[in-house]
């Protein structure tokens, strides 16, 4: 049996109940009066100047967006980055623009996708993936992948239709 899956940080996203499901939803907040979104969720006050007293409502962010820019990490980042594989395997990082929220959200890109597979303007979607594993649990995080990546929710939908 696999180790229990726990969020790598509390309150930023929701994982599905079913371990086999790799969908994930980012949790943000929305300033009710100005319509501004916040991710990570802003819980103290709306930072839109003039809206300090507005209610912040919890919302789920779009799970798809357009690739704004991207890069990779050819060298292992320093701590507190946690070693995933030995030897180190480079990974990509994507900045994705969400249309409704008008916000750019960073995330690692799933393993197996290199910079040559990415292009600014392409559609991306979120998946749940392991950030790192310790003795007891798998620490889970959101990652981006191009829509249509094998094993992705969209690809399975297309395959099913």
């Amino acid at each position, binding site marked *: 049996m696999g180790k229990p899956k726990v969020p*790598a*940080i509390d309150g930023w996203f929701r994982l599905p109940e079913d371990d086999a499901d790799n969908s994930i939803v980012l949790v943000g907040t929305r*300033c009710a009066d*100005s*319509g*501004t*979104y*916040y*991710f*990570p969720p802003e819980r103290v006050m709306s*930072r*839109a*100047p003039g*809206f300090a007293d507005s209610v912040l409502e919890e919302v789920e962010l779009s799970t798809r967006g357009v690739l*704004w*820019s*991207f*890069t*990779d*990490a*050819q*060298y292992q*980042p*320093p*701590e*507190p*980055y*946690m070693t995933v594989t030995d030897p180190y395997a480079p*990974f990509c*990082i994507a*900045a994705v623009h969400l249309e*409704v*929220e*008008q*916000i*750019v*959200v*960073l*995330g*690692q890109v799933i393993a197996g996708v290199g*910079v040559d597979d990415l292009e*600014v*303007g392409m559609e991306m979607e979120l998946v749940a993936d392991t*950030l790192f594993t310790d003795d007891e649990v798998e620490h889970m*995080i959101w990652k981006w992948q191009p829509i249509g990546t094998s094993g992705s929710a969209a690809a399975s939908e297309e395959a099913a239709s």
Partner: protein
Amino acid sequence: MSVEQVAVLGVGMHPWGKWGRNFVEYGVAAARDALADAGVDWRDIQFVAGADTMRNGYPGYVAGATFAQALGWTGIPVTSTYGACASGAMAIEAARQRILSGLCEVALVVGADTTPKGFLKPNSGERQTDPDWLRFRLLGATNPTYFALYARRRMALYGATQEDFAQVKVKNARHGLGNPYARFRKEVTPDDVAASPMVANPLRLLDICATSDGGAAVVLCSMDYARRHLEGSNSDRLVRVAAVSTATPTFPNTIIEMPNFSTDSAAGLPIPERSFKQAIGAAAYEQAGIGPEDVDVAEVYDLSTALELDWYEDLGFCAPGEAEAMLRSGATTLGGRLPVNPSGGLACFGEAVPAQAIAQVCELTWQLRGTAEGRQANDPRVGITANQGLFGHGSAVLLTR
């Protein structure tokens, strides 16, 4: 608007390198050079401002007092500033405000750093509410990650190429060849850049600035003090601070900023007319009543080669998308219309965080005086520095003579 000016009476630097000694030594050496250059005795300095370093224990957090103690206590008021890469400009601004408000006539500003090898990294411990810690833990996002996102964006928006980025390094390496304060003094070819290891695609090792040890200091004074002090000597080369910008972003800031996970959302309030980096320069121009068309020389923060190109546009030297053409035309090379980073920039220095913004002012002072041996721009009268500190500390200093 045009605010009253203060004079740059003296400047000094300790050479950049990886010397591995106590940062206080570099600061003291730079301060003594600046005092000698100004012809002012330390005992006559009326205010001292130190730019803090976060990597050298407690003395680094109270840099003003650390340098004052090292130079010999004289009882003068002190301040210590921190704004990441903008710390030096904040210290300069503290001294300038003190002078302009009439609380003192002559002040010393010092910044110095000793840096470890490798990527800059956050403070240790489990710091679950610190975005700078979290970006390493949750994203593995180093500083070059962010530089690379901007670089890739330039490629997508404007058709910039890795060859364009390499040409920035080639130019700056050539500029720094004769600079005795630069750490790297060696010609670099486009092939050298292309052969260097990829760090954060599209940026290679030679596209990204190193971290260095170094120290820089300036002596600032009121224009009255400068006139009295320089009486009888040639003062038509006296360099003045016409503006200091310490701008912050305006909400919503729609460009991803280190160390954040996301931009501000533009779904509520309208996107401001100027991006953060554009606002940094604009605040300085407005304060001085000087425009980008008047600028003859600039020192900008080339944390990466591609970032230097962003600054051309954000400081108004050319229109968005035209920086590569401006670079290729030779306009920003020594001998061109507006040399950028005549010192060699961070490409030749590597970054010594609290000293760097002060070093930019030292370089432009030498340029405006016409004494930048081996790297002198053609008779410049107006120069601007620009940089940006983590979390939204803007910094620009406009100098004239």
